[in-house]
């Protein structure tokens, strides 16, 4: 009896010991991770940018230049990414939705917007292209898809998650003269309500389905063998996809940001030659072509190209990427 009690007590003491060790280790690692870096910069960004792995490469390069700044990325759909920054839970945003970026500036949340990169959205669909939209313009293609959908020939898969890609899709439907609210009621118009990869896989599983996609996600999933969809509508002015970075406004009281300087360092890094050349190469090893195109180097080397004109038409406000009133101590990043 006594022995048994003793054994049980030993066990209880042993378990207590384990518990204390785990707690100590936990608290120790929490303190370590908090003290190791002086500044902790949080960048709120979109899934299409993060899921390619590009940002992890940029993080490594940036932190080797500024060893006292630790960058973290929170990746969400553009809508949520902007909301996170508006709540003050991120120090800056890197997103791709011009309209909402302007609102972010106008409402006083953001300052110092810079256009950093671009690529193109594409329409992908089943091999053989049953709707016959190959090499049409995006607007013609959507009109044709609607007709084909109504006859039951094809289905359209929408992201349906308020992401930048979803916003682009809605604008394209509007440009073709249709109201998305009406389309949503139709049986051939499906809403995935999830990220790009999940939406692509849904499109792949459905019979004769098409969707709008960014080039990076398409190449990535195609290379992984997740989908055998084909690109049916290629790049053009209407499918331009422009990524910009905006810092949180240090004077907006709700934002409680203490990292304005760090976010400006990261912004300057994004438009630096080092970063722009990483952008130009990223993806070539895996996909045989880059996933993003650097904008700053395009401006420097080929200012008169159509693409520059398209970007300025689409993603500039009154002829500038960031109107004077939304600039904050940033003469160095604007020419």
């Amino acid at each position, binding site marked *: 009896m006594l022995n048994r009690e003793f054994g049980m007590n030993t066990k209880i003491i042993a378990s207590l010991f384990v518990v204390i060790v785990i707690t100590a280790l936990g608290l120790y690692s929490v303190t370590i991770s908090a003290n190791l870096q002086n500044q902790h910069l949080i960048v709120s960004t979109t899934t299409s940018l993060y899921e390619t792995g590009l940002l992890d490469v940029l993080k490594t390069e940036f932190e080797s230049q500024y060893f006292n700044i630790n960058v973290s990325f929170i990746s969400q759909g553009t809508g949520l990414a902007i909301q996170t920054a508006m709540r003050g839970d991120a120090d800056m945003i890197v997103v791709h939705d011009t309209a909402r970026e302007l609102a972010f500036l106008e409402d006083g949340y953001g300052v110092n917007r810079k256009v950093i990169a671009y690529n193109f959205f594409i329409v992908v669909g089943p091999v053989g292209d049953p709707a016959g939209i190959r090499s049409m313009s995006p607007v013609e293609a959507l009109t044709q898809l609607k007709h084909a959908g109504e006859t039951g020939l094809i289905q359209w898969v929408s992201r349906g998650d308020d992401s930048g890609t979803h916003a682009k899709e809605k604008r394209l439907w509007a440009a073709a003269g249709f109201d998305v609210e009406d389309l949503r009621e139709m049986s051939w118009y499906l809403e995935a309500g999830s990220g790009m*990869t999940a939406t692509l896989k849904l499109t792949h599983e459905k019979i004769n389905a098409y969707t709008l996609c960014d080039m990076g996600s398409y190449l990535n999933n195609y290379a992984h063998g997740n989908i055998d969809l084909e690109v049916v509508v290629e790049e053009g002015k209407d499918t331009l996809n422009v990524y910009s970075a905006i810092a949180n406004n240090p004077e907006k009281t709700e934002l409680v940001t203490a990292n304005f300087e760090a976010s400006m360092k990261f912004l300057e890094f994004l438009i630096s030659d080092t970063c722009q050349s990483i952008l130009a190469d990223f993806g070539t090893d895996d996909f045989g072509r880059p996933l993003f195109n650097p904008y700053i180097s395009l401006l420097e080397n080929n200012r008169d190209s159509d693409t520059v004109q398209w970007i300025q038409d689409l993603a500039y406000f009154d002829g500038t990427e960031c109107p004077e009133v939304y600039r904050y101590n940033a003469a160095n990043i604007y020419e």
Partner: protein
Amino acid sequence: MIDLTIIEAFQEAFRLIITADPEVFSIVTRSIYISGLATVLACVWGIPISVLVGLYSFPGKRLLRSLFNALLGIPTVALGLTLYLLWSRSGPFGFFHLLYSPLGIAIGQSILITPILVSFASSTLGSIDTKIKDLAKTLGASDFQISLTIIRESFWEILLSITASFNRAFAELGVAIMIGGNIRYVTRMLTTSIALETARGDIPFSIALGIILMVIVLSITLIINYFRKD
């Protein structure tokens, strides 16, 4: 096609374990310590509550018990979202700086698993109650001594409910992703990596991580059950 992916996934899981892939290793240890911390926290308040609910009778006990049983089904995302709004820099408790921190995830998970711990542990204590209580009483034990004896008698069952709570914390996604934000090297855990790799389209890697998660959960439970026999 599907079979191939699963075979590939097992090969990948095997490779990751054999080579002790540094990033995967750090993700696994981070998951274990965050969920471990959550379990410890849950025990700090969960065990006293279980003893109270399991061994003592007081007004409102039935209600409290039902409440904990109902909370067993709390959606992790809803809990994560609520805590997110409370801990947001612009929220009422923003000054704690718990958002996007490992400690924040641990606290969130401890709240999530408290009902599991309390429901399991209190019903274990309650079931042993009558026989031992009578015996101890005839031997002249005080109320406190009786409680202590019952806790000792049900040691392994309580340990099992603690393990079940840990497993739940270890395998949940909602709190980890809403509170932690899946930041690489800081708050990236097994479940958030699985979600990310699935979103990235690397299906074999996701399943491999899932296999690692299952192996850990299963091993812990098996080890506890093994020692329990003696």
